[in-house]
């Protein structure tokens, strides 16, 4: 199994753990303006996804991402299934040649395109798109214009997503279950934007940890000194 495949599996595992930890938090957000299923749906779906990718032997990055997406589609039971899962499946093809700056940007853009397409949502509708658009655009610009390494571009994307989540609070929902509330959705933070931020934060944290570990292990350990053979022996 390649280093990249192992890393992506670790990311899926870490996302599952994070969303399990945030289950109550997401449920509370969704209770205020939705049907209170987002925490449970996300925690359950990603737990199943983590199990599914763990069972993959000798595979590539694209297959891991696709498998996670397919599992989410089958297990989530709410709109997050087609949005998170369907978009991962669709965008996974961009990673056929592994993880490079170019494939990561293409993956992010395709994922965003599929979410906006399937959900028919735009910025300002109080949905996950409000976190996703600034994140993807910032990631792309950081790599293509500012020439930053992918990990730094991701850190900037997480910051942008965080601002996007904050932006959902004062606006009115016009998509999703919250739109049924009309003006009553104003003043509430969108659960989908929030879980999108959690996923991006976890992606960043896990990738950082692995990079740091790589750096630590790549430091040349001084070879142990072999004692000279005792000529007397």
């Amino acid at each position, binding site marked *: 199994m390649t280093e990249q495949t192992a890393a992506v599996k670790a990311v899926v595992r870490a996302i599952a753990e994070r969303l399990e930890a945030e289950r109550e938090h997401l449920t509370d957000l969704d209770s205020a303006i939705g*049907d209170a*299923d987002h925490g449970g*749906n996300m925690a359950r779906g990603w737990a199943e996804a983590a199990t599914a990718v763990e069972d993959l032997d000798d595979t590539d990055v694209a297959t891991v991402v696709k498998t996670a997406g397919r599992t989410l*589609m*089958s*297990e*989530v*039971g*709410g*709109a*997050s*299934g*087609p*949005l998170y899962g*369907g978009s991962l499946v669709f965008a996974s093809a961009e990673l056929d040649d592994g993880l490079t700056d170019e494939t990561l940007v293409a993956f992010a853009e395709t994922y965003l395109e599929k979410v906006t397409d*399937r*959900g028919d949502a735009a910025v300002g509708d109080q949905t996950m798109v409000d976190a996703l658009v600034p994140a993807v655009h910032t990631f792309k610009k950081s790599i293509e214009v500012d020439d930053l390494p992918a990990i730094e571009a991701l850190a900037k994307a997480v910051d942008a997503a965080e601002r996007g989540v904050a932006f959902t609070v004062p606006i009115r929902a016009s998509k*999703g*279950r919250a739109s049924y509330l009309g003006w009553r959705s104003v003043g509430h933070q969108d659960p989908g934007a929030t879980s999108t931020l959690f996923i991006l934060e976890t992606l960043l944290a896990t990738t950082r940890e692995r990079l740091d570990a790589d750096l630590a292990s790549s430091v040349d350990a001084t070879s142990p000194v072999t004692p000279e053979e005792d000529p007397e022996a």
Partner: protein
Amino acid sequence: MIGLVVVSHSEQAAQGIAEVAAEMAEEVTIEPVGGNGDSGIGTVPDDIENALTTADDGDGCVVLVDLGSAVMNADVAIEMSDVEAVIADGPVLEGAVNAAIAATGPNATLESVREQAEAARDIDKL
């Protein structure tokens, strides 16, 4: 004959709506599907895909949907399925009744049945 698939977040609601529609058109295949597969509220694309296969006799299916994820998951299911199917953008119960009656017509097509289902949007009750 055109088949119908009724998708609701509640499996019971889907079954009930299919029952109401079937009263008007017993020869039409109306396949109810719903729930998150775990006896909870939700929709699952794999289940909808199976319902499409069940309801299709070769002429295709019109799909009636309730809310948000039912629309998206029906969309995903249609993409995955080999069955020719379209979603009707109308109320799920009245649309299903209209579609069932339309499907019994001798010259019914996928498009004409969908059109009748969508016409249910304009039904005045009072």
